[in-house]
Structure formats: structure tokens, C-alpha cells
């Protein structure tokens, strides 16, 4: 099964928005916000350190994960893509890492102020979230094309 990992730096929240938008493409920002708030309540809130958590089924044989760490997304992407290439030989379960980068401030600052979870902030981030999900979908389509 193909695994999509949405990565965001310092906080899981942007990655959660992307994963939720991926699961329910027709959701509005407000609906997405409510579901993410519910997910956070169910999972004991945002995590501060490095974490990789399953989010759910993205449909069409895709598993969704959310991941956070304090490392810059570019560094994580390069490291993982290099390692995947080494590990991926003959691997039946490929990965796609998509970094959601809507935060201009550090995750801890965002968590402290609570700005990220406000509807106003989410609406401002919405185009980036849609773009990240679209990027993931394009990569899935490309992978399927390559495998067919």
C-alpha cells in the first residue's frame, strides 16, 4: 500500500490539515478545522518532538501519515528520499513525503499563541494546504503511471 506522509516542522497541525483535506477533498476550512481539533483531542494534543502517526485511509490504496520534527522540511525530504531510494529496491510499499509549509513562524510559537487553530489563520493557509494535497495526488498519479 502506498504511504503518503505529510510533514510539518515543529507542529503536527499543518500536516493534520493536509491529511484531513486529503481524506475529504470537499471539506471547507471550518469543517477541516473541527475535524483536526477533534483528532487532537482524541490523541492528547499536538506533539512537541519528532513523531510519525497514522492518520487514516486516503482512498485508492493509500495510507496517510502525519509527521513532525524540528528539522527543516528540505533537509528531511532530501534525507528520506535518499534513504528510500536505497531501501526501496524491491520494496512493494513506496512512500511519498509531502511537506506542508504554511507556517511562517516556529511551531512552538504557533502552538503558544494558538493562531494556527484559528479559523482566520486556517483560511489564510488554505491555498498552501490545497497545493500540498494536490502535489501528493499528482505524485500518486505519477507513481501509478510509472508502475502500470
Amino acid at each position, binding site marked *: 500500500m502506498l504511504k503518503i506522509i505529510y510533514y510539518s516542522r515543529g507542529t503536527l497541525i499543518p500536516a493534520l490539515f493536509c491529511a484531513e483535506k486529503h481524506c475529504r477533498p470537499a471539506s471547507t476550512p471550518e469543517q477541516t478545522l473541527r475535524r483536526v481539533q477533534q483528532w487532537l483531542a482524541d490523541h492528547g494534543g499536538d506533539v512537541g518532538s519528532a513523531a510519525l502517526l497514522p492518520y487514516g485511509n486516503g482512498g485508492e490504496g493509500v495510507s496517510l501519515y502525519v509527521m513532525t520534527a524540528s*528539522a527543516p522540511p528540505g533537509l528531511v525530504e532530501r534525507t*528520506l528520499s535518499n534513504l528510500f531510494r536505497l531501501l526501496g529496491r524491491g520494496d512493494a510499499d513506496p512512500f511519498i513525503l509531502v511537506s506542508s509549509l504554511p507556517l511562517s513562524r516556529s511551531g512552538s510559537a504557533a502552538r503558544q499563541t494558538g493562531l494556527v487553530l484559528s479559523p482566520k489563520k486556517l483560511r489564510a493557509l488554505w491555498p498552501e494546504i490545497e497545493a500540498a494535497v494536490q502535489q501528493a495526488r499528482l505524485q500518486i498519479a505519477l507513481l501509478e503511471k510509472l508502475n502500470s
Partner: protein
Amino acid sequence: MIIIFQCYGGTHTSIVAASLYTGRLSACSPPRAEELIALPYYDRMDGAEMGKLHFIGTDRRGNNVFALGSGRWGKEIRQVLTSILALTGENREPVAVIDCLPYINTLTRLGGYISRRLGLTSIGRPLVNRGIRGSYRSLLRLVQSFEQNPEPYLLRP
């Protein structure tokens, strides 16, 4: 097994440790400046190369050996890799990461900054070389410790 030597920029300490491990550098005495400069990737990478796994060679058992620069996020990168490996199943190739960051001394740090960040290679490189020669014994001990027992260095989900 995939063996990764990790440091800040992936261009000095990790390169030297990986070269020691693969037998490209002698364990008997610290290398001369010319030997260091002749190493692939040594004092040649910049920030854009961070996160890329650079192939250094193979060890006696045929394992592939790489150098990796992770900036100041070495620990976080190891955590991320460990989390990801949990998704790959048990049949995958084992991955060992050897953290060389604690073996970077002030001279290497300063010389590396001058050479790589400021681009003043003629000033920075001799400092790096002296720094590396100064920490060579510690790096050798690290490499020997990994050779004797790789278990603590394996990424275990």
C-alpha cells in the same frame, strides 16, 4: 546493512570517519593534509548538500557506507529515520547511523565555517585539517567501537 556516518555538514568529520572505516585512511597515524584533501567530498560541500547521502565506499563485509550532513538536527533526523523505518517492515536492510558530531573540535568547526560558509578555503582548510588530525584518535575509537559492536548504532523502530 546501510552504514551512515553523520555530522554537521557531511564534509569533514563524517567523511574522515567513513574513510577510516572503509580503509581509505590508515588507522596507524593521522593523515597528511594531501591525503585528507584527496578524499571524495572532503571540504567540498555546502549547505545545499545537507541531507544527501554521499557514497564513500564499501566495508570488508560489502556493506555500503555513506556520509550525511544533518546540520544541528542530527538527533531529529535520526528520530525521523527511526520512525520511517518502522513503516518499512522487518525484512528491510538494517540501517546504522554513527553520530560524529561530538567529535568535531573547535578548530574543525572554525575552519569549516571559514572554508565552507565564508568561502575562504585557503584560510579555512588548513585549520580544518589540523582540527581533524587533532580528533583523529577519537574518530578512530568511534570507528573501532562501531566495528566491534554495531548494535548500539542500529536504528531500531
